[in-house]
């Protein structure tokens, strides 16, 4: 059984008389240890998908199961508990709490778990070390660069040892160089700490570091097949979403 399973998930939004249905009867499986990147045109519902997986939004129909827990069935309060223990969320604009130091920001999720103060300190120090910011622990967000802020955001997402980490355009507001650092960091987290990652990105380079590359277009998933290792632009196949609907095999690049 996959770590993350989406079955028949639909989500639509109403704007006045108009109804937009970015996700329509979607299926998706993500295995433990996968690093999945998700690309696709703007407005196709990538962020919506992340929000559904993390339980901060609810689908209109369908089920989402993470590690055996059907998150679509949980109450708002239970969902919060579930997120605290199982999910890390990396925002595009890091969303650090401005009044708290880097250390305190990273510490926040650990305060929600049953940990001793020693365990908490260890976790926070390890997480800061993992993102290379041990020496910035006492700095406030406004005293950090954009890349450093994003790394604090990443440390905050992994500090509770979640099963899944979702990231919505984590490099979207960073320059190329910083963006590369963050990509390397995410890849290491996936490889060395065995964190399952689902990352939305518009950046093809960022997407290419993932072990699985998905594309969401007009409500369908396409998966990049071919030889990942060679780095050549392989083909995108209808694979994971909407089985049976074999619209097109798209060329990409």
């Amino acid at each position, binding site marked *: 059984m996959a770590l993350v399973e989406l079955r028949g998930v639909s989500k639509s939004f109403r704007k006045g008389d108009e109804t937009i249905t970015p996700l329509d009867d979607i299926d998706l499986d993500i295995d433990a240890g996968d690093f999945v990147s998700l690309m696709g045109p703007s407005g196709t519902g990538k962020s919506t998908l992340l929000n559904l997986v993390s339980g*901060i*939004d609810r689908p209109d129909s369908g089920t989402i199961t993470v590690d055996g827990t059907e998150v679509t069935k949980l109450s708002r309060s239970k969902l919060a508990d579930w997120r605290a223990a199982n999910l890390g969320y990396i925002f595009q604009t890091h969303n650090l709490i401005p009044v708290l130091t880097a250390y305190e920001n990273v510490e*926040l999720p650990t305060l929600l778990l049953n940990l001793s103060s020693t365990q908490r300190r260890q976790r926070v120090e390890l997480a800061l070390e993992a993102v290379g910011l041990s020496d910035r622990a006492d700095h406030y967000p406004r005293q950090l660069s954009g890349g450093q802020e994003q790394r604090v955001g990443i440390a905050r997402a992994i500090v509770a040892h979640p099963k899944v980490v979702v990231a919505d355009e984590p490099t979207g507001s960073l320059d190329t160089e910083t963006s590369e650092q963050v990509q390397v960091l995410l890849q290491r987290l996936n490889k060395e700490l065995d964190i399952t990652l689902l990352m939305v990105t518009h950046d093809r380079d960022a997407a290419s570091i993932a072990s699985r590359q998905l594309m969401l277009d007009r409500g369908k998933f396409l998966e990049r097949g071919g030889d990942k290792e060679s780095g050549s632009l392989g083909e995108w196949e209808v694979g994971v979403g909407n089985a049976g609907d074999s619209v097109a095999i798209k060329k990409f690049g």
Partner: protein
Amino acid sequence: MFTYVLKTLWRHRTRTLLTVTGAAVAMFVFCFVGSVQEGLQRLTTGSDADRSLIVFQENRFCPTTSRLPEDYSRKIKEIPGVRDVMPIQVWTNNCRASLDIVVFNGADPQQIKSTRPLTLTAGDWHAFSTQRDAAIVGRNVAQRRGLKTGDQFSIGDISVKVAGVFQSTVPSEENLIYTSLAFLQYTRGLDAAGLVTQHEVLLTDDADPDRVASEIDAKLRAGSVATKTRRKGAFQASTLSDLVDLIGFAHWLGYACVGLVLSLVATTTVMSVQDRIKEYAVLQTIGVRPLRAMRLVLTESTILCLVGGIAGTALAMAALAIGGFAIGAEGATIAFRPSIGLALTGALVSLAVGIAAGLAPAIQAGTVPIVNALRQA
């Protein structure tokens, strides 16, 4: 998480300070109003007010106009149920309502010592009972006028030597200055030899105050001056009736203060939460439960309210303790004293208002639509 609340308050320190100051001022007024209410309450209840009677000239109100023969006390003493009678000459600098009223009560020093609930905090009884112009001064008056033992104190035609300062279990007593009866009777302008303003009647334990009062009036009707006898509490309440209405009205001012704190703290908290609604969405994304988010907001509003409210209450208690404030009219006075009950009320009201003020913003923070709030730039 508590750090988060404190740091948030600190980050907007100007706003926090203004709110805390506002709450402090309002709670200061609240406690002041409360102490006036308590003073009035004390004046009209309690054993001193219920178990003693005041015999006054009929249809007279200001002490200067009530003139009863001193030897009425002998006649009154014959009535069953009367334990003791103390003829008192009253002199006041102001018959109308005033915040700086000075009231002299002239009576026999031995009787004062044995019947009034007084303890000297300075000076001695001997000096008071042996010197003609000696006076003992209530703590409140002493504080207000800066008097101490040995001082000479003059007002109007009266000039006395302070022989002691007393405190009393009956706070309104602390607004009085006691002299000997003869001294006041022979004061220039009073011309009251053989006359007194009123008789204070102490009852035996089993006597019915109202029965004794009507017997006194009936018996003295045959005398040269008709009298009106009432319980001391009722007498004081009717003497102060204009003020009583005013003070009764003032409790609305107390409620208004509570309303003020409520709206002030609520406004600040609502603003604070609306400013940071995205932060609450982030916190809940991280895994903070909605109820916990609500608690954070409630903590914030309660801190604002408690810090301000307790500061205001403490200041009010200090001012009341030091200032010796009193309001009086026609020789009767109401003392404003600090009290533990009042301090507790101030603290509890602050706590309750703090929680109430945080409710609406707390619900807002707890039920924030996470995704929409996160999408805000």
